[in-house]
């Protein structure tokens, strides 16, 4: 903080040097902000418009329970149904037990199928195989188990729910 003559002249000089520059910057930033406001005002509705189906699917995915008229499903057979927006499967095993899984392969998202004759869940895309009782991967590329749902039989209804 020295009060030398050069310092008192400094701000004046600096003002001449930098004022035009900062004004240019001010206009640039101002126009930039102005443009950003318009881009936002135009972009936001367009984004929401295009994203609507995804939002709807997200809403559907929020459901936690599906009630199916499936108590009469033959043992050893499968019922494909929608759990929210995703395909799911309900298997009635030969021993009378029930199992329900998210039917989307954990590898690359193909829909899997229950093969009655081989008693296994198979993904035709890359040959992944899952255990039809636990949903654990048995062979092939799947990295994780299929998501398992809770099954409860109530009269004629089979209620599939997620924890």
């Amino acid at each position, binding site marked *: 903080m020295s009060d030398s003559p050069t310092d008192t002249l400094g701000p004046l000089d600096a003002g001449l040097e930098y004022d035009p520059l900062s004004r240019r910057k001010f206009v640039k930033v101002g126009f930039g902000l102005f443009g950003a406001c318009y881009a936002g005002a135009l972009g936001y*509705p367009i984004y929401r*418009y295009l994203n609507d189906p995804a939002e709807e699917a997200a809403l559907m995915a929020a459901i936690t329970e599906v009630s199916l008229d499936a108590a009469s499903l033959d043992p050893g057979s499968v019922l494909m149904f929608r759990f929210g927006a995703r395909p799911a499967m309900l298997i009635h095993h030969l021993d009378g037990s029930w199992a329900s899984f998210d039917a989307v392969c954990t590898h690359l998202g193909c829909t899997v199928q229950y093969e009655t004759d081989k008693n296994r869940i198979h993904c035709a895309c890359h040959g992944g195989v899952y255990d039809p009782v636990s949903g654990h991967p048995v062979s092939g590329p799947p990295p994780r188990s299929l998501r398992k749902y809770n099954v409860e039989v109530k009269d004629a209804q089979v209620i599939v729910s997620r924890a």
Partner: protein
Amino acid sequence: MPKSSSRALESPPPSKVWTFLDERLGLSEILEIARHKRVPQHTQSFWYYWGGISLFFFLIQAISGVLLLVYYRPGVDAFDSVRRITYDIDFGWLIRSAHSWSANLMIVAVFVHMFSVFFMKAYRAPREFGWWSGLVLLGLAMTFGFSGYLLPMDELAYFATKVGLDIPTSIPVIGPIMGDLIRGGPDVNENTIQRFFALHVVILPALFVPVLMFHLFLVQKHGNAVPPSEEAKPESERSSIPFFPNFFAKDLAMWLIALNVLALLASLYPWDLGPQADPLAPAPQGIHPEWYFMVPFQVLKVFGNWFPGLTGEIMGMALFTLGGLIWAVIPLYDMNNKNAARARTATWIGFVVLATVIVFTIWGYSAL
């Protein structure tokens, strides 16, 4: 001091991105051409913006149209898909409203552009092709409007299209065949929607864009025409501004105003969707076409009253064809500034046409 002021005027050094693009795309050469291009400045300069405003609304049409295409389904599902866009999809009402409002504003801008060109005598040599390509664009724009009007397939759309297509159908001999081909059957049905859809989103854009390019190329080639009052002045008394950045910046400002007007109209007055079209229901009271078809609509109505039956319709159409023809050959009649009598006649024709348009439009609406 001199050092710092000269620095203030100097533009900042080009950025690396600019240099990269410039070396490969020759951007500075384009800027150099743009810098030499000048736009005349005089009391009537305001009218120079209207071609650009029309272009702006056309761009909005292209963008909002593609967005509508994401959810619209032609054919039997047409009404239901538009109902979904209007009431279910987030901001769908706004996109649709913007498309409809911008269509109307585009026609307004095109009309202002056309009449200002007419009265400034900008159709004179060497700009005849500008006038003709502009008329082709106007015809295409109106066909865009007519075909787009059916696509929601609500009550108004259905009857407006029915009435509109009955007009060419009344042409002797070829009329009925043409009508059947355009409609895809003897009546407006889902085949008609499918055809109009193909017309609206594929055929018309494919025709419109090249003609528009040609039109813009001519504007670039010949520059802006000056009105006769300006032409009469000696070169030294005329003034002009550089196209870039001066006129360009003003053009952009106009576009911004146009965007704001559109945004206000589209959001404050959302475009309506009527009840679903029902071929068995009677035509609703006060059915009428879009305002830019009000003149032919009213002319046909009036002629139909004066000369009942087919005669009226045919006379109305003949009159219209004749008027259109005169409008198109004006550049061949009023060719240059040498013939003052012809110039005056052309101006009078312009006034008559403008007055006809205004009178018949008002008459049409008041007779509903």
